[in-house]
């Protein structure tokens, strides 16, 4: 990634400023999931998704962090695996569409309470491309169900732009 001296920055654009995006859950609901055939974006509880979008003016990195609280469904037997993940569309400069896939060890609903899970990834973005990053339900072991909370105090995805034109 080239480094752009200040004197060469276009005068018709804002200076690089490390922009920030925040999307919280929109309503207190509990969503049940089952093993998906494909990744499913997490709901915000009010008809939207836990996702953020950004179109950079400069090549840059996008640090994205997201997640919510989870527990197992009533049909779980012992500890089981369920995964949330961070995705991006279109693919970033490195060809990444699936960022971090976070495994979550969860238990039958009636035995173990809620657990918090957050994860992060750093995507490399190209100037002028409209990107969307989302928190998704990625995988569940043996078709066991799980549940997540969409409340604004639990569910969130946050993006921060860094390294605009200047990376190590």
């Amino acid at each position, binding site marked *: 990634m080239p480094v752009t001296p200040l004197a060469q920055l276009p005068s018709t654009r804002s*200076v690089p400023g490390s922009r920030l995006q925040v999307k919280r859950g929109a309503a207190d609901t509990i969503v049940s999931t089952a093993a998906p055939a494909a990744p499913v974006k997490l709901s915000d509880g009010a008809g939207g998704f836990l996702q953020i979008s950004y179109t950079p003016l400069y090549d840059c990195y996008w640090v994205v962090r997201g997640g919510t609280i989870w527990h197992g469904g009533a049909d779980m037997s012992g500890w089981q695996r369920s995964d949330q993940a961070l995705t991006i569309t279109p693919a970033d400069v490195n060809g990444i569409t*699936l960022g971090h896939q976070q495994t*979550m060890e969860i238990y039958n609903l009636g035995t173990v309470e809620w657990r918090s*899970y957050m994860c*992060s*990834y750093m995507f490399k973005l190209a100037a002028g491309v409209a990107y969307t990053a989302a928190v998704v339900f990625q995988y569940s072991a043996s078709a066991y169900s799980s549940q997540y909370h969409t409340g604004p105090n639990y569910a969130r995805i946050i993006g921060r732009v860094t390294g605009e034109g200047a990376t*190590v």
Partner: protein
Amino acid sequence: MVVALAAWPSGQPLGTGRAAFKAGPAAGAAVAWPANGVAFEAAGVPMALGTFNLSYRFILCAFANLIFYGNTGTTWTRYDYAIQLYNTGSGATVTDLNGASYVQNADSRDAEGGAWSGSSLEYKFYCEAGINYGVRLVGGPGSGANGIYYQAPTTLNFGAYTVGEGVY
């Protein structure tokens, strides 16, 4: 200390963040949980980032995401890991301007029919100007007995970026 825009050298980029990122290798592999102070690896390469050496004070944000498994045994076990701040010249752990040299997670897990679980850690180090800083991901003092973590692009990542250049 705030650096006025007019005083900023025209021959270097604006201070909008330097970034570095490393993820697990394409050829996934389960690896034994590292001992206290021993680095996590990606295909034999230690998970370390840097050098970050700026001409003004700055905040170095670092984050790590991993998945792990307590693969044998019958008791609850601690799986600790830490992000250390170190000098890339000497290799020695150093403290930031707030006296912090590392941040650590302790994740206990039961091996009862266990499943892969995930964990995430992040911190912001306050760094002095003119020092060769790096961050590295290492095992912590918890035993980590019989534990493994998984090296893959979507299951192990480590990132760092700078903010607040010249502002503090």
